């Protein structure tokens, strides 16, 4: 079943185009990573899905209805980011008790388990928590709510690496125990690629690609060797990325498209390198070829 469907989705803030004709769909019970550079439109897309914003053009459907101002959609969604506000009068343990009334799948045991594991002080107020702790607390709510559609927008901002690892593990475990549709937007692809199933990559408000992580890992091939040889060998191929090293050596990344590594191994001075997902996404979303090096060459 398709949970989210976007049709030519466009959102502009005044003259600034945040999303540009985005068409995509997200299937039920998938853990999708929303990846993109700063300002690629990740948060805007997530807020459109949650029904907080209205598309300027195009259409979005969540659970087959327009999410804007829809109670039905709101009841089945939880949107976790670091802008969540809870009443100043509530202490942390009050929040956990009160929020539970809104979500029918609320898992109090999980909430309290995580709450104690991360050693929160139940008497503290949400606003007095540090940024990392706020993110952790919001994450607990996001997991315990067990909403059919759970959206995490940069959930790990401010968390230290130990907590981030715990969070990914908790997310994966709870997802396996209680499968649901989860969208996770993040900058740190290297950290989340192990738990994601699909990746939706945004570039400048448009869809760059939407594939499973397994496919993406086979997407590209890196080749390193003397510049002339590499260029010669890759003639006719689309270069995703090139990087020059000292002594005329060149590193190039191409789309794999069914090429096997055997074909390259014949040439002795060519070195085959794996391309990490994170690097691949950086290459794919590069604005200009050549990356930061280009600036210094001029």
């Amino acid at each position: 079943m398709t949970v989210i469907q976007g049709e030519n989705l466009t959102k502009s803030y005044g003259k600034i185009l945040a999303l540009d004709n985005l068409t995509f769909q997200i299937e039920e019970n998938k853990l999708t990573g929303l990846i993109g550079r700063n300002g690629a439109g990740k948060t805007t897309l997530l807020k459109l899905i949650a029904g907080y914003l209205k598309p300027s053009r195009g259409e979005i459907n969540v659970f087959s209805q327009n999410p804007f101002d829809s109670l039905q959609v709101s009841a089945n969604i939880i949107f976790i980011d670091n802008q969540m506000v809870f009443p100043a009068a509530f202490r942390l343990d009050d929040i956990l008790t009160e929020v539970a009334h809104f979500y029918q799948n609320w898992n109090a045991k999980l909430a309290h388990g995580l709450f104690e594991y991360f050693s929160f002080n139940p008497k503290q107020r949400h606003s007095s928590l540090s940024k990392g702790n706020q993110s952790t607390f919001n994450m607990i709510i996001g997991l315990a709510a067990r909403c059919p559609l759970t959206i995490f927008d940069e959930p790990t901002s401010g968390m230290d690496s130990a907590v981030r690892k715990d969070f990914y593990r908790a997310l994966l475990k709870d997802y396996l125990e209680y499968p649901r549709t989860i969208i996770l937007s993040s900058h740190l692809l290297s950290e989340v690629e192990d738990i994601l199933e699909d990746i939706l990559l945004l570039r400048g408000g448009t869809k760059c690609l939407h594939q499973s992580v397994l496919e993406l890992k086979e997407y590209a091939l890196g080749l390193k060797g003397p510049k002339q040889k590499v260029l010669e060998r890759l003639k006719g191929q689309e270069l995703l990325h090139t990087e020059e090293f000292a002594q005329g050596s060149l590193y190039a990344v191409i789309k794999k498209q069914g090429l096997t590594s055997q074909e390259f191994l014949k040439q002795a001075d060519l070195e085959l390198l794996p391309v990490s997902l994170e690097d691949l996404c950086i290459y794919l979303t590069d604005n200009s070829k050549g990356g930061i090096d280009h600036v210094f060459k001029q």
Partner: protein
Amino acid sequence: MSLSNNVLSVASRQYVYKLKANTSGVYSLIFIQVLALLFSLSGIQSMSSASDTLIVNVKYYSGDIMIAFTFIWIFFMALRLTSINYRTMDFTLVTNRLSSHLSNVGLLLTAIVFGGISSSLMGFVLKIIMYFAFDRSQIGVNGFYPVVSNILLGIITTGLYMTLIASMGYLLGILIQIHVLFVVLYPSALFGLARVNPQVLKLSYDFFASETSPLIFAIRIILSSLILFSLSCLLSNRMEVRK
């Protein structure tokens, strides 16, 4: 997909949530009324006349200041509920715009019940203080001793006025959300109207204040408040949240 999510059930859950979150509102009410009581102690009006042989000094004491302060309190309560912070609080959890408004109105009505009763009863605190602070013979007896029906009428009237004021504050809050300029436009429109056509303001004052039949008065206030609240709902219907 959960099914038990009609607007009323969500709004009532939100109402309970907000009630618990706003218990401190009672303290601000108490503070404001005690403050008003202190102001009232010096009397709101005094009149004196003197001749060669006689000096007459008349002082009026009244609970009006307490009522007025309670009006101001409910106005700002309503205004506060429309702030971005409160809206984000709603949209952190399950809500839509209608259920958010409904639970806000519920919360305001609860505040009105509290404010209406307490401000009317504060009048008695003032009277009791007067009773013990002055020589009994100096008190003008007319209307001093309470009659139950009058107390009830006082509470209901105060509550109704508070409802009207709350709906005006709420509308102002929504307008400010639409554009900040309404902070200035709202009062200046009222004053402008009063200058251009003073009759309008007098008519609307008469419409609410000079009605002698309690029933018609109640209907007028309730209908007007309903219209203002619905206008607020309509205006905020297309508004984006958590931008």
